[in-house]
């Protein structure tokens, strides 16, 4: 039987276009946006890092250890890790103000709690280590990338750490989810009536297999939440080689290998 050559035949297997995100990533897959990381872009700082994931761009500087400003009993044995996360006024679709709002403070606190377990603070008595994060462009999953960027900057600064900290976010939307959501994906909720609707951010220490930060909002069942945490951990592992590579480069640039002794 002769085949109809005029007709364009579709592929054997096809998938619904809604399965794909606008930038070609797939839903329900641990498909993080391509990331670019680089250490040491601010020469004045002890350590610094820059991260770009899709359109989300942020930078982080680490200063210290220096003398503590605020003094109380706990500083005597352990150092203090201070974090400050700010959004540039032009970073979001709507112009923000330079003054730190309560949301920024919340982000700073989350960042601090996520990083602190990884830093060997007992090696820095009486001193404080400052971590400053500036969000240049907010295109979703800011907190997760801030965590990754800050831990890289800390490593670049030569601050002793137990492990790197990697961050990953997901957006649950009904039965499906998006890993590393963009700004629009983060704030959209298509299916109104569905049970599972929310965001989740996890900070993870990959070598020690520990979760140092966890935050979720919206509505989720326990099963979804558990699955989400697992997905985020998987997402963190995807970032790990990229971050390690950037750090290797930074180490090599900082100094040549010491002579064999």
């Amino acid at each position, binding site marked *: 039987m002769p085949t109809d050559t005029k007709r364009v035949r579709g592929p054997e297997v096809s998938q619904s276009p809604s399965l794909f995100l606008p930038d070609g990533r797939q839903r329900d897959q641990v498909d993080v946006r391509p990331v670019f990381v680089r250490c040491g872009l601010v020469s004045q700082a002890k350590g610094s890092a820059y991260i770009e994931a899709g359109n989300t761009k942020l930078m982080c500087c680490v200063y210290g250890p220096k003398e503590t400003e605020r003094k109380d009993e706990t500083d005597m044995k352990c150092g203090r890790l201070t974090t400050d996360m700010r959004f540039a006024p032009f970073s979001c679709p709507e112009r923000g103000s330079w003054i730190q709002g309560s949301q920024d403070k919340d982000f700073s606190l989350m960042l601090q709690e996520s990083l602190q377990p990884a830093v060997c603070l007992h090696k820095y008595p009486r001193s404080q280590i400052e971590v400053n994060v500036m969000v240049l462009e907010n295109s979703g999953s800011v907190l997760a990338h801030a965590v990754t960027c800050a831990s890289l900057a800390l490593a670049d600064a030569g601050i002793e750490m137990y492990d790197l900290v990697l961050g990953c976010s997901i957006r649950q939307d009904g039965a499906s989810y998006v890993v590393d959501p963009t700004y629009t994906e983060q704030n959209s909720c298509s299916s109104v009536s569905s049970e599972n609707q929310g965001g989740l951010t996890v900070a993870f220490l990959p070598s020690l297999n520990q979760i140092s930060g966890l935050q979720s*909002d*919206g509505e989720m069942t326990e099963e979804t939440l558990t699955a989400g945490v697992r997905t985020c951990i998987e997402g963190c592992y995807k970032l790990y080689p990229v971050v390690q590579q950037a750090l290797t480069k930074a180490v090599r640039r900082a100094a040549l290998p010491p002579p064999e002794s």
Partner: protein
Amino acid sequence: MATVQVSEAEKVYILHGIRDDLRVDGRGCEDYRHMEIETDVVSNTDGSAKITLGHTAVLVGIKAEIGKPRPMVPDEGYLEFFVDCSANATPEFEGRGGEELGTELSNTLYKVFNNKRSVDLKSLCISEGEHCWVLYVDVLLLQCDGNLYDAISIAIKAALFNTKIPRVQISADDEGGKEIELSDDPYDCMRLNVENVPCIVTLCKVGHRHVVDATLQEKACSVASLIISVTHKGTVTCTRKVGGGSLDPESIFEMTEAGKRVGKALHTPLMKLLQEEESRGA
């Protein structure tokens, strides 16, 4: 945060006790302390509640005011949270000392209520795009003895249950403008459906186990805790790790499961209690 100093020996004592499911005050690992709830305690508010949990005391007052709806959601009212850490609770809160904790608590409350079902926000709308009810939820910490999150969330639920919003009528005047008219009858008011309002359960990781409703001493022995807000159906509306330590993924899953179980069990007696008190007052 209000903290206490605990010596090494005390720590070991608490740790060993928890390992054997027996806590210093005789509770099991998933038991709450004695809880007292009182509603309608401040006459100037639209809804109020006071709760004492062990020695922790929290007062919540809710004021309803007419405001403009948010442009993104013109058919909904909204809630505003403010947590004040009074210097009465602990001298550490004097001046600006309590500010940090206050912002942390209120930010978490926003997250807990950041979903469509906790409070029916549509019922707070008066006229779309123009007027809506704004509920100002003001939390005052009177005494700190650990487990602030849980106490606050229960107090908010009780206060929301107690909230009476006056009914309003919208009438159009001759020029086509709208006028809001408050009902003359003080008993003619709207009540909120608080069935879906979540309660927060804080789980403190102590040693290899976790405890519910930790006292300050127990908190001092723990490196990290997980807060979970759970509705009566067991839906989780917010989770968050607090404290300077990290947790094993497996223990996080265990804690979420325990949190859901404890949280779910919390709602039924709470609602029963609130309804009982309501009927007694009437």
